[in-house]
């Protein structure tokens, strides 16, 4: 009797568990299915662009298929040389500007952040508040005076207006990010270094910098992506096609108005975002942490 009822009870419990697990699994499957569909919609435009870059031009429009009738790989070399100058030049320009901007921004922002986070000086709070206020200023307000300034000193049509400001700690976002990071490093380390005979500069360079690689990496990565994608700056300051960065060159592609070049256009568009894509894949951790903790774009 008792033996049986225990068996029964356990059977009921087992059945209940099976039902519950089944329901849970069904919910999980539904969720995954839904997310999968969402992601498909999300990436469809990108995939479409990739496919279009190797499609014959007459298949690009009015055709939602993701499989070309033939692969026109020639779009890539043709697009590369599709403008008055080869994309080698534009890539070289973009790389020069971006690399220098990354170095400049990382160094100058960490400089300012070190002062704000670790050093004592008169007026620190006021300067910090002013720095935070620059966060609110839209670029468009300073755009015209900056342009006039650079025009006056003859920097228009050079890379300098795109690079020099990066060495002047103009990105309050990154200064703030690094201030936050530096503040959570133990102050004892600075003091130990002080007693070990370090100057403030040596503390910055030999203690703070090596310990702040995550914050520096986040800054460098975002500066890279934003500078690489930057359109307005080059649009204003670079007028000679020999100085064009990749985004400007792409824009020239569409303003040429030749209908037959869409394959090439897409091929070059894809090449233009490859560096960002590669960075994203490799540095996802930093990027995601950077956004989650500081609200970077």
């Amino acid at each position, binding site marked *: 009797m008792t033996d049986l009822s225990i068996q029964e009870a356990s059977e009921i419990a087992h059945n209940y568990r099976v039902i519950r697990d089944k329901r849970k699994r069904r919910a999980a499957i539904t969720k995954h299915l839904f997310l999968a569909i969402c992601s498909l919609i999300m990436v469809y435009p990108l995939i479409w662009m990739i496919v279009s870059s190797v499609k014959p031009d007459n298949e690009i429009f009015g055709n939602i298929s993701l499989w070309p009738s033939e692969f026109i790989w020639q779009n890539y070399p043709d697009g590369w040389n599709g403008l008055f100058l080869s994309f080698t030049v534009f890539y070289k320009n973009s790389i020069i500007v971006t690399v220098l901007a990354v170095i400049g921004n990382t160094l100058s922002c960490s400089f300012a952040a070190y002062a704000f986070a670790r050093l004592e000086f008169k007026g620190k709070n006021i300067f910090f508040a002013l720095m935070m206020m620059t966060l609110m200023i839209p670029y468009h307000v300073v755009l015209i005076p900056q342009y006039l300034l650079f025009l006056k000193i003859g920097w228009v049509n050079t890379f300098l207006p795109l690079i020099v400001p990066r060495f002047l700690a103009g990105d309050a976002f990154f200064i703030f990010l690094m201030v936050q990071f530096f503040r959570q490093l*133990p102050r*004892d380390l600075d*003091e130990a270094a*002080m*007693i*070990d*005979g370090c100057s403030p500069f040596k503390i910055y360079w030999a203690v703070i910098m090596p*310990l702040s690689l995550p914050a520096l990496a986040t800054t460098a990565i975002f500066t890279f992506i934003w500078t690489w994608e930057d359109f307005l700056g080059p649009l204003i300051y670079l007028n000679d096609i020999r100085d064009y960065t990749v985004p400007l060159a792409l824009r020239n592609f569409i303003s040429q108005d030749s209908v037959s070049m869409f394959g090439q256009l897409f091929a070059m568009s894809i090449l233009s975002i490859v560096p960002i894509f590669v960075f994203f894949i490799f540095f996802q951790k930093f990027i995601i942490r950077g956004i989650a903790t500081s609200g970077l774009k």
Partner: protein
Amino acid sequence: MSGVNLNKVVKTYGDLEIIHGIDLEVHDGEFLVLVGPSGCGKSTLLRMIAGLEEITDGTISIGDRIVNDVPAAQRNLSMVFQSYALYPHMTVRKNLAFGLGNLKMPKAEIAKRVAEVAKILQIEELLERKPRQLSGGQKQRVAIGRSIVREPELFLFDEPLSNLDAELRVQMRVELAGLYQRLGTTMIYVTHDQIEAMTLATRIVVLQAGIIEQVGTPFDLYNFPQNKFVATFIGSPKMNMIEGTANKSGLLLPDFGQISLPKNAPKSGNIHFGIRPEQFTIGKGGDATSTGKITLIEYLGSELFLYITLPSGHVVLVQASSQTQYKTGEELTLSLTAKNAHYFGEDNLRIPLYDEKK
């Protein structure tokens, strides 16, 4: 010469004065311990000597040099931090060599010194590790190593043992004492742990609320506390304090009754009568007796402490022989001897009644 001299040193934060004009002479080659409850300003004082904290007023000199405006790096001292403050991104070897490198010392000399120190502290096999791969005790050793490798004229320690577990703390204490004997350099050591202070110091400075309560050898502090604060702060467990009233023939204590005091004793007013747990005698005898009931027994193996409630409700702590068996609730007779006790006036200062005779 590397004594340290503090002259009317004051520290304020904004309107808040933390250190109220301290005068202190640290002799060359002594192991001076700054002890006091948390917030008494002992760490601030140490950091001012180190040059990590600005001096609001007064002067600090190391050797014959006034160092008020000398940066920490140029004071030729080293410091062991409570958190150890090892550079996390450097190996133990680099941690040890870092300060020497800043002195532009030749590489061979650096290597020699690091090897020497590693040998003394037995951390040779740890040299290539990073701090996070070390245990607490090992980190502590590296931190000490980093400070002795520079061969400074002054060592500062800021509660260096407080992050260790009890067993390791005792072990490191012994090692520190050994190190001091070996080096003979001036050391200033901050702790809130009075046992550390008693065991390590050649002299102790008791600080409270930014002023010095007493400076002296551990023996002096234990046997001749200059005020009530030092009396209760030094010694573990604490000294018992009984409030008595002075009269013409001596002192009237609750529970114990009248005891007679030497002629130089005050004839009126309140007196704090202090007696350490080991100064009580169980059983009749001495100058006065009382009965009491055991309310709590603390058996420590080598020692035994009894919490005894006297008829007035006052609880005293008494040390007894650990070889005798006691039961809670048991009634006991307790006696005390006047010349073994400490007397503090209404101003909390010591009344030196028997000091000459000791």
